[in-house]
Every structure is written in structure tokens, then in C-alpha cells.
């Protein structure tokens, strides 16, 4: 409105550019959410957790299943026993469902530590990485088996749809009579951004000011030193995987509310990888900044490069940016400098 007061509007082209950037920032926040889960686990255990995306999918599936009152494994039970069950009731209220899902994710973290990680201590990173890919497949199959593979709508009561207020505000910026109808911003994206900020602040406070947080940071810094001062590595791992499960749940809710709960949700993990490269595997601020850069870069590329080469650049653009970036700064934006000795 200040702009309008000067008497001449801003050109619609520039406003479109701003809109693209804003939308890129919003989707970048979503990438950051997933990348955050990766960074947490990588810092605390040196494991590159490929299952993060599937954990988000699994959390979202469980949430929807509880909300709508589905019977877990209904399909399997029906196939074996020849029964026809599908729902046990009207379902849980949203808040309760989220709490129960969180409990499920904590139980999952506990199981992962107990069944998988405990036996793989001291293995090479690539083996651990493979184990998490195996885990990803397992969870994906189990999620489908438990709750069915159909696309589900997830509604946790967050606002969604375009913001008319913002559209009106921005339309006024364009010159009088210009062919411009205001910027489109999804309110869901805005709430996702707010929640992400809250989450990051909470995580930072947690890791700075609580005893557990200090222990987490100690483990991240040096496993052996942490062990020698009496920090239990295994309980730390359970805690970290629980937190990652929580982050996955938040990411699952956001992505699920945005595009429905379906298999493709697990592919956002792949989108988070270039974000990690850009930000560095060990830095929480890096995950956020990387996410924003990738989000904006992708949207801009799709809008300005896409039409030239036939669209769908989004699929690989992020990786190319990351690849180019790696050539100049192998440890990412905020990653620790890699020093190698013989």
C-alpha cells in the first residue's frame, strides 16, 4: 500500500516473480521439515536415515487410520479369515489421534533400536544406510498392509485454500487497470511455515537447555567421549529416533493435508537429500536454509526455465543445484569442514 501511494504500481511481472519466490519459500519450509529429521538422526548416530520419508508416510497413515477408525490389517485379516471387517467405530478425535500416533512413533523408535540398530553398532556407514533403506521398504509395506494403499484425505483442522485477504492486498500493488489478479498463497503453507518455525525453536531450546538435550549434543559431538562420561548411547538413540518420529509426524501431517496421504509422500525424502547436501548433513540451520534455497530455486526454475525445456524441471533441478554446489563446497553451507588424516 506504501507502494501504491507513490502513484505508480509495481509491474505485474515483478509481482509474479515475488509470488513465485514466496511459494518457493513455502514449499522450501516443507522440505526443511523432512531434512530436519535427517539431520537430527545423522548428528546423533551418524546414520543417514533413508526411512525418514517413509516414517512421515507411516505416521500420516496411522493418524488417518485412527481418525477414521479403521481396523489395522483389515485387508490381511479378511483375506485369511474370509471376514469382512473394515472399521471399528467412528474414530478418535484429532488431538487424541495425534497423541496415539506419537506413541506409535515412539514405540517404533524403541523397536528400531532394539531390533536393528543394536546389532549394527560399529558397522560401516554404508551398511547402516542400507539397513535404513531396508527399514523404509519394511515400513512402506507395513503401512500399506495396515491401513490400505488407497489415497486418503487428511484433515486436522488446519485452514487451507487461497488467502483472499492477501490476494486483495497484492492486487492493489499493481498499476491501475493492469491485468493482474493478486498473488495466490495457500493458507495451509503459511500454517506449515509457522509450525516449522515453532518446531525449530522448540528443538533448539530443548537441545540447549535440558539435560537430555545436552546429552544429545554430547553424543553428536563425540560418541566415545559421551560414552565415557556415562551417557547411555542406546537410550539417546531411542530418544533421537523418537524426536525424528515426531518431526516425521509433523511433516506427514503437513504433506498429507496438502496433497493427500499416499505413497508419493515417502518420496519427499528424496527431495530432502539435495537440501541436506546444500545445508550440510550436520547442521540444523543448514537444513532450514538449504530447504528454503531449494524451494525457491525449484519454483523459479519451473517458472522461468521450465517452459523453455518442456517442464517438469522440478524433478531434477534440486539435484543439479546440489551437484554444482558440491563441486565448490563439498561439506555444504554449514557442514563441518571435512579433515582427513591417514
Amino acid at each position, binding site marked *: 500500500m506504501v507502494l501504491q501511494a507513490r502513484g505508480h504500481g509495481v509491474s505485474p511481472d515483478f509481482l509474479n516473480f515475488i509470488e513465485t519466490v514466496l511459494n518457493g519459500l513455502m514449499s522450501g519450509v516443507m522440505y526443511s521439515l523432512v531434512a530436519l529429521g535427517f539431520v537430527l538422526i545423522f548428528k546423533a548416530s551418524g546414520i543417514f536415515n533413508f526411512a525418514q520419508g517413509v516414517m512421515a508416510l507411516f505416521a500420516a497413515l496411522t493418524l488417518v487410520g485412527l481418525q477414521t477408525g479403521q481396523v489395522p490389517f483389515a485387508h490381511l485379516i479378511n483375506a485369511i479369515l474370509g471376514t469382512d471387517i473394515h472399521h471399528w467405530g467412528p474414530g478418535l478425535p484429532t488431538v487424541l489421534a495425534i497423541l496415539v500416533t506419537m506413541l506409535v512413533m515412539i514405540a517404533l523408535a524403541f523397536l528400531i533400536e532394539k531390533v536393528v540398530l543394536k546389532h549394527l553398532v560399529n558397522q560401516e556407514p554404508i551398511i547402516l544406510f542400507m539397513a535404513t533403506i531396508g527399514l523404509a521398504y519394511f515400513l512402506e*509395506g507395513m503401512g500399506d498392509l495396515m491401513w490400505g494403499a488407497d489415497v486418503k484425505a487428511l484433515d486436522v483442522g488446519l485452514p487451507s485454500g487461497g488467502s483472499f485477504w492477501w490476494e486483495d492486498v497484492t492486487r492493489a500493488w499493481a498499476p491501475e487497470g493492469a491485468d493482474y489478479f493478486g498473488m495466490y498463497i495457500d493458507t495451509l503453507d503459511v500454517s506449515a511455515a509457522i509450525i516449522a518455525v515453532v518446531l525449530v525453536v522448540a528443538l533448539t531450546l530443548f537441545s540447549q537447555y535440558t539435560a537430555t538435550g545436552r546429552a544429545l549434543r554430547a553424543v553428536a559431538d563425540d560418541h566415545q567421549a559421551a560414552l565415557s562420561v556415562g551417557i547411555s548411547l542406546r537410550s539417546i538413540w531411542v530418544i533421537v529416533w523418537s524426536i525424528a518420529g515426531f518431526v516425521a509426524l509433523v511433516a506427514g501431517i503437513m504433506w498429507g493435508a496438502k496433497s493427500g496421504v499416499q505413497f508419493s509422500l515417502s518420496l519427499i525424502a528424496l527431495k530432502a537429500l539435495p537440501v541436506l547436501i546444500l545445508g550440510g548433513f550436520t547442521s540444523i540451520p543448514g537444513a532450514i536454509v538449504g530447504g528454503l534455497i531449494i524451494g525457491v530455486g525449484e519454483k523459479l526454475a519451473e517458472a522461468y526455465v521450465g517452459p523453455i525445456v518442456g517442464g517438469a524441471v522440478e524433478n531434477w533441478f534440486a539435484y543439479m543445484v546440489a551437484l554444482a554446489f558440491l563441486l565448490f563446497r563439498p561439506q555444504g553451507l554449514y557442514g563441518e569442514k571435512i579433515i582427513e588424516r*591417514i
Partner: protein
Amino acid sequence: MLYRETGDFKSSYATDQQTFPIRSERYLFWGAMVIAFLVVPFFINDYWEKSVLVPLLVWSMAALGLNILTGYCGQVSLGTGGFMAVGAYACYKLMTAFPDLNIFFVVILSGGVTAFVGMLFGLPSLRIKGFYLAVATLAAQFFLVWLFNKVPWFYNYSASGQITAPERTIFGIAVTGASAPPWATYLFCLTLVFLFAWMARNLTRGTLGRSWMAIRDMDIAAEIIGVQPLKAKISAFAVSSFYIGVAGALYFSVWLGAVEPTEAFGINVSFLVLFMVIIGGLGSILGSFLGAAFLTLMPVLLKNVMVGGLGWPTDLAAHFEIMLVGGLIVFFLIVEPHGLAQLWRLVKEKLRLWPFPY
């Protein structure tokens, strides 16, 4: 004697370098080859060809390729699907551009094209390693598949965006196309795989292979003792991509006949081949075959048991299969992180002392 050699009785370099130092193993290997080449072709039918044997051979080839890169040179790659796509599209373009060229040379040339592309995408490996490199290879995966979807030249402007293999013959017998007899396609793949496995074995125990292994074990130390990282890494990428390209060409032309890039060469293919290599055993030629066999045969078996035996709906069986594959991978990694090849090595150690273990 069924098994021999409990000590070190080698008196020349040649015996020391033997692939099969024990006589029974040599007989076992050649016996298996005789059966594979001379017996199986007479009994093979369409089902065994299309869902068991040819897939097994194609995946073995791809696993061999990835094993050279990841197992021998220590560079993790998640771009296998993309490189297989390069092989397949190179094969298609060559088949349609030069109809008179023998399919054997077409497949080899496709491997060459893929080797070149692989070298390009291998360049970042000089700067980055580990997970960073793994993610960087994902760039190849997504970019290549996107490219084959978007540029009509690659699929000869066909309306469906698919590529379909025309019929090509060797010695007058069709090996690609719908009318190719099962035994011909099988023998064609088998010959190529045999040839290249033999070459891989000899490459990996020569100078080149040793420089790869030096880089794998510790690249800085290797550089100091005079291994050129540039040469070793890029050659590993080239050779590995060559194998993967040949696998991709066979996958498209002999096995499937018609492919659509997003489906056939997606990220899942990359993971599948990586699984094969890990489950089979990193840095082992035999391991590539064992891993490929395990992950090709197990789904077929599971499907037969669950859909055929228990009468479950197919989608349920598919979910169960994914879950089981994931579970088995974790199980194998816990029980034997060095793969099936290591199990075989342990069995051999035991057999050497048999029947009088101390």
C-alpha cells in the same frame, strides 16, 4: 577327493592367482556352466525365460557393474536406474538407426555410450565422497530419466513415448522382438554375462582392480603411494557404467521388449541393484550373482506361495512382498553384513578342514 588344500602349497604366481584354487570347485564351476549352456536351453520355456532366467542374467550383469564401482572402488552410486536407461535408449537408437548392425555389437556399443555418460557423472567423485556422492548420483538418476521422457528424439517421436525393440537376429535366429524363441534369448544373455563376468574377474585382480581397491580402502593413502585417484575413479565409473549399460540394453531389448522410462528405470531399480550388491557381498564377483539370484527368485517364490498357494489378492501379496524384502535386507545385514559371498567363503573354510576339523 571332495575337498582339499588345508595349507599353503602354492609354488608359482599362477597357482597363487587362480580363480578356483581347489579342484572340486573348478569341476563344480565348469559343471554348472555345462548345464547352463548345454542342458537348460533344451528345457527352457516361456515362463522360465521371462520371469526367472533372463531377469536373473540381466540383474546379474547390472549387479556386476555396480559391484565394480561400489564394491571394488568404494564409490556408492544411486544412479544405476538412470545408467540402465542410457544403455536401453542407446540400444534403441542404434537398433533403429543401423538396422543391419548385428545386435551383439549394438549391445556392446550401448555399453560404450553408457560408459561415456557414466564418466561424466563420475567426475564429481573426485571432489566428493560417501553419502554426498551417493546423493550426487541421484542427480544422474533423475536427470537422465527426465531427459528420456522429455526429448522426443530419444524415442523416435513415437506417440506413446515408449520404445519398442524391433526384431534382430544372430546367425539368423531372432533374439529380440516378440517371436524370439526362449532358448535363443537365454543363450544370448548367458553368453554376454559369462563373457563379461570373466572379464570382470580378470580386471579386478589386475593392476586396475588393485588401484580401485586401494582407493576404496583409503583414498588418501592410495594417492600417496602413487595410485592416481582421477584414473582409478573415472575408470571405475566407466567400466561399471559399461556393464550397467549392457544390462540396460538387454533389459530393454531382450527381456521387456518395450519400456517406458519412468516405470522401468525409476529410483527403485537403483535401489534394487544396490540391494543385490550388498546382500550378495561387496567386492565379490560371485556375490553379484548370488545377490541377483536372491532378489530375483525370492519375489517369484513369494508370489507363487501367496497368490498361488494361499489365494491372497495380488495387491495384498505385493505389500507383503515389499515388507518381507525390507525385513530380509535388515535381517541379512544384521546376520552377515558382508553378504552371501561371505557365507560361501565361511563354508569353504569349513570344507577345507573337513572331515577333520581341529
